[in-house]
């Protein structure tokens, strides 16, 4: 299949930048710096252009000029007040803009966050340790794989209480208290382990993603950029390491 010039060029750029970034695993080098600076510059430039196009053009100028929605000038003025930070004599005006943002933000976020992350989670933590099934009487379910089982309810209860006790520093952790605090540490360690395991999985996924693309771009239809740019990267690393060997850094 014949690929367009843009697709091929994209393949070469993606391959080159991937290899340049991966070259950091060997040692810090100018190729890595080039790719790093390009990443920062391109992502910032993209964000600025998209924000300008969406906010200034689509959401402000067009509605005002085409539909006469002059009320939009109110948020525009409040937003513009923020820029007065750069004029020392008028900087006090920016406080009105910040006060508006902080007030609205806190007003919107606080009740919703309390409802979602505190009340709902407490509601879920306080679960019956035994279940009353009509016709069967009081039952106890043991399945560890079922999050709603009574056994998991007990584990969560012990976990929540022991971890909360571990972070309760007004009482000395000795005697039975020490045992509860130790149990809290165990629960915390299990939680950190699970989080770290997922983090490793995520990082490996990123590596798999890059290697999958490198394999795809090693195809002849792209002109084998993976092969040529790998040679270029390795060659540059060898040249750089020889050059730094010939001129050892001053101590």
């Amino acid at each position, binding site marked *: 299949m014949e690929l367009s010039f843009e697709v091929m060029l994209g393949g070469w750029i993606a391959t080159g930048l991937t290899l340049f970034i991966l070259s950091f*695993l*060997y040692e810090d080098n100018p190729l890595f710096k080039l790719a790093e600076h390009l990443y920062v510059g391109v*992502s910032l430039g*993209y*964000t600025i252009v*998209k*924000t300008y196009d*969406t*906010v200034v053009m*689509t*959401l402000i100028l067009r*509605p005002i000029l085409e539909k006469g929605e002059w009320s939009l000038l109110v948020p525009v003025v409040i937003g513009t007040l923020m820029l007065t930070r750069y004029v020392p004599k008028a900087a006090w005006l920016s406080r009105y803009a910040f006060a508006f943002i902080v007030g609205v933000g806190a007003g*919107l*976020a606080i009740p*919703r*966050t309390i*409802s*979602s*992350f505190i009340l*709902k*989670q407490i*509601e*879920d933590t306080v679960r019956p340790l035994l279940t009353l099934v009509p016709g069967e009487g009081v039952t106890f379910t043991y399945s560890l794989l079922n*999050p709603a089982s009574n056994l998991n309810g007990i584990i969560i209860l012990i976990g929540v209480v022991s971890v909360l006790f571990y972070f309760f520093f007004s009482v000395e952790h000795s005697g039975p208290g020490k045992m509860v605090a130790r149990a809290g540490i165990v629960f915390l360690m299990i*939680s950190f382990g*699970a*989080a770290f395991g*997922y*983090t*490793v*999985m*995520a990082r*490996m*996924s*990123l*590596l*798999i*993603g*890059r*290697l*999958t693309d490198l*394999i795809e771009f090693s195809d002849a239809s792209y002109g084998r950029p993976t092969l040529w740019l790998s040679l270029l990267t390795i060659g540059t690393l060898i040249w750089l390491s020889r050059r730094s060997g010939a001129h050892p850094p001053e101590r």
Partner: protein
Amino acid sequence: MTFAERMLRIDRRIIFLVIGLCTLFPLLFPVGLPIRISSEVRGVFDYIDNLPEGSVFLLSLDFDPASKPELYPQAIAILRHAFHKNVRVIAMTLWVSGTGLADSIVSQTAKEAGKENGKDYVFLGWSPGGSAVILNMGQDLYTAFPADYGGKATKGMPVLAGVQNLRDVTYAVSLGAGNPGVEAWYVFGKDKYKFELGGGCTGVMAPGLYPLLRSGQINGLIGGLRGAAEYETLIGQKGKAVAGMDAQSATHLAIIVLVAICNVFYFTMRRQQRRQERMGS
């Protein structure tokens, strides 16, 4: 220097090489290890599978190219499933840096499924405000997005017929790589406007979202590349995620072996040091 000491001071680049090779070989020569479907991924799949034809499905692609390897396969699999079920798809993003990627995902999948822009699906693009956009959409979708990504007016689009705000959405899924993402969609969306919500996220975020899953705040969770592979298996269209699972298993095995070996060397060295101390005293 003993063997254990030498091994513990091994050049880290050798470990990078081992991990790199463990990733590369299974990608070049796949084994096809079985993939078990978890209940959290099935939660999202079942809900979409049971949506009646013409229902309104909202997909928020809240990520940028940095999370592409994990969330791109999830987005592709979910969109393929939704288009197959003939539901009306409203796609959008809360991340400005992910707008181009989200657009390419939606248009590519729609083209594959033979769907028409504006009639079967719409990509709304990005709107400023982060979580506030969700609240804005909850009041009036057309104020938050007066035009779609291509600049066409959203009012009057056949795909949005009968949709005024988030209360008219049957099911929403946020594929989030951070904030705003799944949590924001729950806090400012589902909790207030009462639609069903599912989530997809990067592996790093998954442990933090499990409490929402258990409490029923979200009805399913697709976690990382593994979750994407499970979804691809469920829809019967194996893609990039399934292809990466062998490599994922191989690297995990390599890391477990390295951790075990390092521990053996560490304890061997400690025992030798203690023995030397005893002999010295």
